């Protein structure tokens, strides 16, 4: 979600609530002789409200499972998740008086920091990375379609190559309508089979020269110098196909950045909520 001016009401509300909570906490902390404790009425209130906000933030995942339910727009839930989730950290810190007593509390707070940290990281990523993918991957496609698009690109490249040197799987053959020297045809075939085809076969292999834009340009320039005029049009097309492949690889990488943080954020959030519940029951009962 992009953090922009449209978030102002939420920012203002969160900051206002944070100030009110802080004032309340300071007054409470100063007035309490033994120091702030989670078990006191005010500490408990901070804890309950903080946990409620955590639960609300956690419910975003459930909300996403029922996208058509008219229970508030998803973006409202997302904004609430962001800002109230952040506020919950402050309230929980006030609840415990900035002290983490006992192993469960320690684990809880550790989890909480990781969850909040990964959430902030996610917010930052989702603020900047969509622009990056938009500008750096003009030929972006639907993520799930990438394998299919790649198969099509390979097929297209094979057809282009076949137009010069005959079927790429067989031995070199004369192609009607093209006046290309046998040597040129063989050179093209070798370059295609040694450089282009392996790259298209596995574009994610590291260190391949065609996976790098600059080196790819150099490679194709060299081939253009080496091969006769009729082949150059095909080389241009193959270069474009390689560029599209690079963009798809880039899209996959950026897509992973966009969503990989969720692998940390979501399970730890669930663990946090469960352990938070355990902590609440144990604290209230025992």
């Amino acid at each position, binding site marked *: *979600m*992009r953090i922009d001016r*449209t978030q102002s009401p939420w920012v203002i509300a969160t900051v206002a609530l944070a100030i009110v909570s802080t004032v309340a906490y300071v007054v409470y902390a100063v007035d309490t002789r033994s120091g702030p404790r989670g078990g006191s009425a005010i500490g408990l209130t901070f804890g309950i409200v903080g946990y409620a906000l955590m639960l609300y933030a956690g419910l*975003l995942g459930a909300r*996403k499972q*029922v*996208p*058509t339910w*008219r229970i508030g*727009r*998803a*973006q409202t*839930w*997302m904004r609430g998740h962001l800002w109230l989730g952040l506020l919950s950290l402050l309230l929980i810190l006030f609840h415990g008086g900035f002290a983490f007593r006992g192993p469960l509390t320690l684990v809880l707070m550790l989890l909480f920091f990781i969850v909040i940290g990964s959430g902030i990281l996610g917010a930052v990523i*989702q603020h900047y*990375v*969509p*622009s990056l*993918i*938009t500008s750096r991957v*003009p030929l972006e*496609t*639907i*993520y799930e379609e990438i394998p299919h698009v790649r198969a099509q690109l390979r097929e297209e490249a094979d057809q282009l190559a076949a137009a010069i040197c005959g079927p790429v799987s067989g031995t070199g053959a004369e192609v009607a309508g093209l006046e290309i020297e046998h040597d040129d045809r063989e050179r093209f075939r070798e370059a295609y089979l040694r450089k282009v085809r392996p790259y298209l076969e596995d574009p994610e292999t590291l260190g391949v020269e065609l996976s790098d834009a600059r080196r790819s340009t150099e490679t194709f320039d060299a081939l253009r110098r080496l091969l006769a005029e009729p082949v150059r049009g095909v080389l241009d097309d193959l270069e474009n196909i390689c560029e599209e492949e690079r963009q798809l690889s880039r899209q996959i990488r950026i*897509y992973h950045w*966009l*969503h990989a943080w969720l692998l940390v954020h979501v399970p730890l959030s669930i663990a946090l909520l469960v352990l938070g519940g355990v902590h609440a029951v144990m604290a209230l009962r025992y």
Partner: protein
Amino acid sequence: MSDVQLTIDGLQVSVPEGTSVFDAARMYGIAIPTLCHQQNETPVGVCRVCVVDVEKARVLAASCVRPAENDMVVHTNSERVLRARKTLVEMLMADHPSPCARQRQSNDCELETLARLEGITEPRFPRKISARGQDNSSLVIAVDHEACILCDRCVRGCDEIRHNDVLGRRGKGFLAGIAFDTNLPMGNSSCVSCGECMVSCPTGALTNKSVVKTVLPGEPVDVDELQQLSYFQKVSGTFLELNKNAVVRRQFRKGEIVCREGEYGSTAFYIMEGQAEVFLSTPMAHVNTERHGTGFLGKMTSRLFGRREERRSEEGRRETIPIDAPVDLPYDHPVATLGPGDLFGEMTCMSLYPRSATVRAATDCVMFEMLRNVLDIIQRNKTLKAQLDANYRRRALDDHLRSVPMFATLDQKFIDILRDKVELVRYTKGDVICQQGDVADSFYLIRLGFVKVSEPHPGGELVLAYLGRGGYFGEIGLLGGGIRTATCTALDHVEVVRIHGEEFHRMVGRFPEVRRSLETLVRERQEQNRQRLATATSMPLDSFLAQGLMEAQSLLVMDLERCTRCDACVRACADAHDGVTRLIREGQRFDKYLVATSCRHCRDPLCMVGCPVGSIRRRNSLEVIIENWCIGCGLCAKNCPYGNINMHPFTVLENDPVNAGRQMAVVKQKATSCDLCTDLAEPSCVYACPHDAAHRVEPNEFFRWVGTPLASVATEEAARRT
């Protein structure tokens, strides 16, 4: 009657008084070439090719009109005659497009044959073809006015032999030609397609259109048998011979499928004997076929409540589903019966639309299956047309009138009055049914085909609506100022029920609730039109017309700088539509915005044209929706220029035709397109986007976001298309 004695080419002949020289010569085996004369027509002597030299006569005489006289001495092959005949043929050939269509088709153009016999290879006179043009409006006969030699054989064939009085003459001098009615295109005239003119024509001016390329399955019907049927009696035998492969007799056993909904075909069926059941076999759901009627309780509930609970609010009173047959199907139980004398499949045959319903023989049946040239012949046949119209008036007019919600309350007595008063009118593609500004004198109810309602607009035409079977128009003019407010044009073969103004006013006077409903509807339509015009005039029309985006009423736009590619929009769409998404997160990019592939609810919804069952329609709130009774023919998807309608396959269980009593899985499909989730407050894709990236916007607003002047967008778009 006494005989006359004369000499022809030295031969003494005796013929009854009144016999022409041409016939006298023919009776004694002396052939005189001619072009304008035919034995079964009154001679007119216009071509002068049959000239003969009569001794002591001042000039050469046209033998076809010159009566034989006593002691007359006639030379048919004198030097003078041969020279004159050759000159005449040369002059005719000078403006004849040789080889003409007939010469090309069957190598028997009489003029070109004569020219060959006369040894004319290259005329002495400069060739100049009269620019009279061609007329291809008839389905069965091609008219090449340029090949016409003005012999009038067709005119006499039409008037004297068939008594149809359709053909006549038009123009003067070099531009003179034959004309149908008041110089209308042949297909739009009152021509009954009997073929007599074509059979009479000596050249390629009137030729048979060879539409019979396919061999229809079934038993060929010979010409004699056809001519015994009342509606083929007045059709030329030669013409039927030329078209005989275009009609076959089909025998169907009880339970056999005659045609299936959604299939593309090119034939119509006329039921001779037996009864057929017409129904929709595609499940009535969009798209989930399992939602209702599963399990014992579900099935019982479905039976008890029909489909009423699924209706949209504005279709609460819908009673029928329009199909390509003389009857409509009841909405809640879409099955009807057809019997002898019923014709079905007209739209498929005439306009090549997909079949609108499945037809199954309810008893053993005999039907004629015909291609469109034969259908055209019988549709133009007065006997059959009267029979079909009578069938329609008797059986379908009630349903048809009552399918219009506001007429649902008309009492039977009044419908009986209307039954004889209404006129059934046919239009061919491109005909203007009524023109904006004309006096409003009728109300129209569409029986067959599609009508475009449009208004002229600076720089172009603005389409207000496409109306299909069951649609109606003309009420605004009749209830308003008496002037047509829009132009209505036939998009294909259209048949309408025309209720004249007098009857219409009597009807609304007698039924105040009908008047009230109509007035409300008029106000709604006027408001919609006003809004549409306002939208159209608020943007530069060049841009509006230059690109598809401006045709849209609602674009699904993704802000790519906000979109995290989480696909929540796609999942929401699928969730809201039985698991089938109606949007694809791909499409044209403008700056940082992506216009997703999802229905744009175009102002000019081309997708609506041709739907054989009228299941794609525009709601009052202007969005285009696909109704549950879609038969999955795919025509709308094909028609959508933006690829925004998808065909979704699904499996249903049907009776196995091979193994009786068993069921088999059959894959069917239905068209799906974005319905803007109108039953919900907001489109689900927009509602479910957690990042505020998905928006449904009007094109104007979108281009304001982009901050690009419309004109430049239009230019870019035009360049891209080029």
